[in-house]
Every structure is written in C-alpha cells, then in structure tokens.
C-alpha cells in the first residue's frame, strides 16, 4: 500500500515539471546538419552545376525515384538535361548522396514539403538546384578530374601529373 501511495505522490510531483512537448509549428524541432531531409542539387564555388549526369544516384536509389538524362555542353562538360525526383517515392535514405562522386546531390535538414496534389511532389531540376555549395564547400570536381572541359587544361589540375607523351619511347 505504501508503494502505491508513493507512486501516486511521485506522479503528482510531475505536475511541477516542464512539459516536453515541442509546440510545432510555433517552435521548430532542432535538427542536426546531417539530418536526411529534402534533396538538393548543389553548385561548385564557381557557380557551375556540380552534377555530371553519371546516373550513379539513379542506380543507387532503392525505390527508383530519380530520373535524369545527361548531355554535354560545347566544352565537353557533362550536365543533366533534366533531373527529376519523385518525392512521393523517396525514402530519404541518403544512398544517392553517398553514391555521388561530385558532392552534387545532398540531403538537407528540411522536411516541410507537404502538398495536396501528389503530382506537385515530383520536383524538376529547377526546383532542386540551389545556388550554394551545400554541406561540402570548396569542392570543384573539374579542378581535380583529368578531363579538360573548359575549366583547366590537361595536366593542370590539383595533384595531377602532366600528360604522358604517347609517341615517345621513354618511360
């Protein structure tokens, strides 16, 4: 009986504690930077698109919600002609972010994307592309890659060896 009275007393004392509820939408939940929310396509520090249209994210996606078509510009730099993500299928797993070789596709801590019409949840490239470098600042894929696509010449990238002369017999 004493333990019962003690339980009642302890529960009564809970009245004087602060309540744990977060009153959304007046108060927002504090999300950490790596929280897997809305997908964005980022740009490199020179404001070009990071996405090279390699289809790795579409291949990695477990629910096949990414659809894209790669094309090249006049300098030979690849970019996506269209890039479509169906957010009604997306499970926000982050596999596409892990698969991307250029840090183009990223997941940011934003989840407020509710729509009344399911078709409005299919985001095109202009909805996904942002004018920022996202979570990985200072990375430009074309400065490191061996390809010269109007950004640098052959052999001038960071940590890049000069091109080998294929016609000479010296090693």
């Amino acid at each position, binding site marked *: 009986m004493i333990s019962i009275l003690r*339980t*009642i007393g302890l*529960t*009564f004392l*809970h*009245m004087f504690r602060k*309540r*744990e*509820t977060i009153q959304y939408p007046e108060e927002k939940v504090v999300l950490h930077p790596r929280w897997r929310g809305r997908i964005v396509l980022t740009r490199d520090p020179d404001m070009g698109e990071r996405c090279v249209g390699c289809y790795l994210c579409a291949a990695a996606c477990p629910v096949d919600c990414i659809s894209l078509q790669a094309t090249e510009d006049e300098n030979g730099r690849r970019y996506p002609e269209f890039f479509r993500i169906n957010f009604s299928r997306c499970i926000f797993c982050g596999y596409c972010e892990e698969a991307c070789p250029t840090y183009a596709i990223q997941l940011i801590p934003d989840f407020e994307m509710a729509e009344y019409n399911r078709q409005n949840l299919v985001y095109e490239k202009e909805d996904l592309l942002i004018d920022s470098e996202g979570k990985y600042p200072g990375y430009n894929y074309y400065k490191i890659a061996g390809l010269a696509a109007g950004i640098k010449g052959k052999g001038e990238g960071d940590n890049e060896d000069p091109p080998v002369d294929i016609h000479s017999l010296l090693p």
Partner: protein
Amino acid sequence: MSTIIQYTLMIVIVLFTLTTIAAWLIWLERRMLALWQDRYGPNRAGPFGLLIVVADTIKLFFKEDWIPPFADKTIFVIAPTIIGATVLMGFVIIPYAPGLLIADLNIGLLFFLAMSSLGVYSIVLGGWASNNKYSLLGALRGASQMISYEVFMGLSLMGVVMLSGSFRLTDIVLAQKGCWFIITQPVGFVIFMIAGIAETHRLPFDIPEAESELVAGFHSEYSGMKFGMFFIGEYLGITLISAMAVTLFFGGWLGPAFLPPLIWFSLKTFVFILFFILLRASLPRPRYDQLMEYGWKILLPIALLNLLITGGIVLMMNK
C-alpha cells in the same frame, strides 16, 4: 403544484449540470492526464482545447451505428442505457446544499448502493448481447470484479451509518458538523474509495474495458453513440463516487462561511475527481486474479474489522 414545479426545476438543473460535467470531464481528464505525464493535452481546438468536447461529440455522432448481425439486438441497444440511468438515479439522493436536493429519502444510502448494484447489469448484458467470445470474457471478469467489490462497499459505509445513526444523507452531513467522518473512519474511507474505483471500473481496476485487455473488453462491438453512452456513464460514475465520498466522509457542504455551501461541495467533489484522474495516470493495472485476491482476502476482512471496532466503540461511548 408548486412542489411539482420545484421538483421539476431541481431535476432539470441537476440533469443539465451533470451532462455538462460529464462532457467537460472528457476535456479535463485528457488535460490532467497530460499534465501528469509531462505533456500538453488538447490545446489547439478552441481556447485551451475546450472545443475538443464538441469535436469528440460530433465524431461519435457521425460514427456508423452498427449493430452486429450476430448480436441480440434489443439487449445490445438497452445495455448502454442502463449504466447511464442507474448512475443518474444515484444522484437523486445527494444533498448539494442545505435544502438543495431532489429526494430526501430516509434510506438514501441504501438507494445509492442498490443503484450501483444495478450498474453491473450494463456490463453483463453488454458483453452477453455482443455474442463475441472476448466481449463475454471481458464482461464476466468485469461483472465478477464489480460484484465482489460491492460487497465491502456497503460494509465500509456501515461505520458511517453507525456514527450518524441514520441512512438519510442529510443527517449524515449534519452529523459531521463537529468533526468530519474522515477522522473517525479513515479505514472506512480508504475501503470505500477502492470499492468505488472498482465500481466505476476505472484504472487500476479497469480490466473490463482496458484498451489492451481482451481487445476492448465488453464494449468491443460498440461504436458511435452507444460507446459514447458507456463513456458518459463512466464519467458520471466518477462524479457520483466523488460526490458520495465528499458527502459521507468530508462533510458534504460544510465549510467555513466565507463561501456558500454549494461551492464547498463542488470544490471538494472536484478535488476527488482530480484524484481519480491522478490514479489513472499513476498506477499500473493488476492482474485479474491479483485483483480478486486483493478484494476478497484483504479488503473484506479489513472492512469487517472496521465494522467490528466501530460498533464496539459506539457501544462503549453510549454506555
């Protein structure tokens, strides 16, 4: 003629107040449970979430009023009304203020005990008419729980009757003018409260209707307004037991003169209703056999002992 008008007015006022209280208790219970569980209850619908009562009522009205084709139709419909009717009858004898009561029966306490015994019918008939194994099991458990806890509900009140010398509730309240019966009959109060909680099948004795026990107990097949009637019956039962505890042990409408007696009665009843809700927030549910053992092996002997000792002391004081 004027007595008829007086009685009718009194009945209408009490009925109106009780339905308001039963509806308001939905909101109060959810907010108080939340307060004791470190969260907010409903606070979005209307100021402080008060419109949640309206929302719940509208929801219950709009639910499909389905009577199972395998159920006994007449009894299925009658069962929820029994609990409401018996509990409302129990409110007839309670003195709310000096001179403010519906029926000053000289066997008022016996009438209350009789009405609470009739309340068992609603559970038994509800479970039986549902024609469903789990409802029947829940109903049988509930009925046996209520019947066994009723035994010592009456016995625990006999001490009060001995001390005040009458079954009439007004006499019992007036006999507490010098000293409230909680001081002379603490054991009786505790046993009456426990029995009262079992009678209204509230936590921790809510095996008949707990959400996780046997699907939903005896009211698994009920939906819509019939379920609402069971619900209202339960909340009215809480109010009735609180009001009876106040009348019998805490002096009814007695109190210092700076507040009118009706306000004292309401305040004390309100405190007991909060205590019921606090019990729901804090205690776990005992197993069915633990519950029955507690009733028959512990509480009944204590009630009898209380009766014996009180009788002995009253006899000695009368010498």
